[in-house]
């Protein structure tokens, strides 16, 4: 995709009267970081970019934005929000529509077909970050890293993010404007890390997760970054009744992770953001992917694939599986 085309289209969109702002990606302050950018006028569109470093799923901002009550006598700003999405991100938008978290006509979806993004942490381990922002480009077969005037070719498999290895929707499923050419979907990798846990026995699985959940510091970044964790009032913050104690210990951490994972059943669109942002490196993706697979295999539901669908947990089919019922 040409950056010029992206910036020109973005500038046109933010100049529209019915658009409040556009959320896209811009270069970060150092290394391989990319920062979300809230563009309010055409001039701001010049900093937008789309590259293999754009891992963040910006759909989360559709529900995350906090607004103050509209003062008496003034009218609420009902203009649309324009949003740049990759394939996975577009599923988040679609699923938010399904869940009635947003209404479709409130969002201008700018689709960016995505040949796969990188795992920034993995990349930084191989080629350490410096204080100067670096650039990464797709080059057909893999990536080209440009930093300090030097170009390094990287094989795709070497640094591709795990979510992209497993990706089945590289092209946005919904969009108002599509930028660039559709990419040809690739064969998703069979190894999602779920099988590795599944093949353990109960004690082994418990030991595995006990180890993981014990590391949690409860910063709630996994919850906040998740586009489908969109409740205004989360049960985890409730004190009356207290579902999950504030204390940080293995018991409460496990309760938190069960609650979080369960609330994403039939919602998770496998964008991998929870795993990416976790400062404790907890493999939350495995938990989510396992449940997403069960939802898909047993109930035939694919979150975010169809904006007209019924929300999974608020609907049923007469022939849902019930082999576990006595």
């Amino acid at each position, binding site marked *: 995709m040409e950056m010029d085309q992206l910036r020109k289209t973005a500038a046109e969109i933010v100049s529209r009267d019915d658009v409040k702002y556009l959320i896209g990606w811009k270069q*970060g*302050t*150092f*290394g391989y*970081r*990319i*920062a*979300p*950018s*809230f563009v309010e006028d055409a001039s701001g569109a010049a900093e937008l970019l789309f590259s293999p470093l754009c891992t*963040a799923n910006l759909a*989360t*901002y559709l529900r*995350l934005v*906090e*607004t*103050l009550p509209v003062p008496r006598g003034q009218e609420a700003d009902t203009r649309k929000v324009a949003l740049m999405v990759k394939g996975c991100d577009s599923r988040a938008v679609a699923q938010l529509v399904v869940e009635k978290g947003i209404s479709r006509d409130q969002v201008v979806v700018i689709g960016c077909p995505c040949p796969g993004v990188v795992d920034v*942490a993995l990349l930084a*381990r191989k080629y*350490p*970050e*410096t*204080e100067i922002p670096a650039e990464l480009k797709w080059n057909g077969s893999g990536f080209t890293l440009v930093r300090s005037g030097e170009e390094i070719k990287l094989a795709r498999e070497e640094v591709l993010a795990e979510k992209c290895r497993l990706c089945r929707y590289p092209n946005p499923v919904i969009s108002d404007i599509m930028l660039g050419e559709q990419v040809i979907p690739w064969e998703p990798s069979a190894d999602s890390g779920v099988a590795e846990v599944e093949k353990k026995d109960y004690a082994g699985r418990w030991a595995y997760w006990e180890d993981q959940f014990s*590391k949690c*510091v*409860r*910063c*709630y*970044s996994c*919850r*906040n*970054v998740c586009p489908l964790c969109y409740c205004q009032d989360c049960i985890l*913050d409730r*004190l009356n009744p207290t579902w999950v*104690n*504030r*204390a*940080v*210990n293995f018991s409460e951490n496990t309760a938190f992770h069960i609650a979080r994972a369960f609330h994403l059943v039939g919602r998770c669109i496998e964008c991998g*953001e929870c795993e*990416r*942002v976790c*400062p*404790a*490196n907890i493999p939350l993706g495995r938990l989510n992917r396992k449940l997403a697979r069960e939802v898909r295999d047993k109930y035939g539901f694919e979150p975010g694939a169809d904006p007209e669908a019924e929300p999974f947990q608020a609907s049923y089919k007469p022939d849902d599986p019930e082999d576990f019922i006595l």
Partner: protein
Amino acid sequence: MSAMLLNKEKWPDFIGKLADKKLWVPQADGDAMRFAPIAEGAALPLEFSNTRVPPKQVVFPQTETLYRFQLGQEEMEQPQLEEEILLLGVRPCDARAMEIVEKLFRWDVDDPYYLKRRALTTVVGLACNEPCVNCFCPSVGGGPASTEGLDLLMIDLGEKYLLEPVTAKGVDLLAAVKEFLDEAGTDAVKQKEQVISASMQKIKRSVDTEGIPKGLPGLWEDSLWQRVSASCLGCGTCTYLCPTCHCFDIQDETEGFEARRCRMWDSCMFKEYTLHTSGHNTRPTRRERTRNRINHKYSYYVDKFDVIACVGCGRCINLCPVNIDIIEVLRQVKEAL
């Protein structure tokens, strides 16, 4: 006692001799590092810039019981803090943070828990040979070999550690392991200076804090707060992993008739932090919360305790999922002044 040298081969002996205290050292945990108590004789890993969770967790645990009691009864049982702790491999920035936070915990009323734990802890620092990409400690009064908050500073000189005692506790510690140490000559001191100045060279990022503490409150309504907080997720990563963040919540927890009152880290980036029971929130959006975080570190704390409550460890920059970079925020503040 003056500076001493410890041959790295004697590390296990050194550690073994100190085993009467509970030892905490940085340990590998996947790709990250964290402080954890160790078994005897473990090596001190050196290939790390810093741990994800700062060692403040040792003197200010994430969850700490203040006292426990039986429901319906009035007797409160307080924890007996007696175990001596040896905290090994603390980076100078994190030790400095403990010193800074202590000012608050001593302010007017002493906080018995923090001060007791601090008194029971001997902090052995490890000077930074390889600062991380976002380290900026020299800009806020620290440095790769700063000794503030440390009892003993270790400097890695390749095959040997140079051990410099800072406090009486550090001297005692050295005396206890005298048999493994050699007198440090002028060579070692010269070598140390080289190592530290090489390290200083590797610190690329900086902040000019001049005028910020006085000027920050004047930027209350500046548009920069909206700009820098727009992408904030409102998670607690920056504050929980900050070595100087010290805010906490107090909650009562019960199981059956067993109950305790405990305190746990809290984050000013959470909506609930200032939410009144009535539903009124004094900091209703992330704009106000971000503003408060920066102001607290760079202005309020300076007013009260005459020191910036940021030690330049770079954790919040490294780990922010959306690249909210305090150096960049401060640059914008400076620009707006």
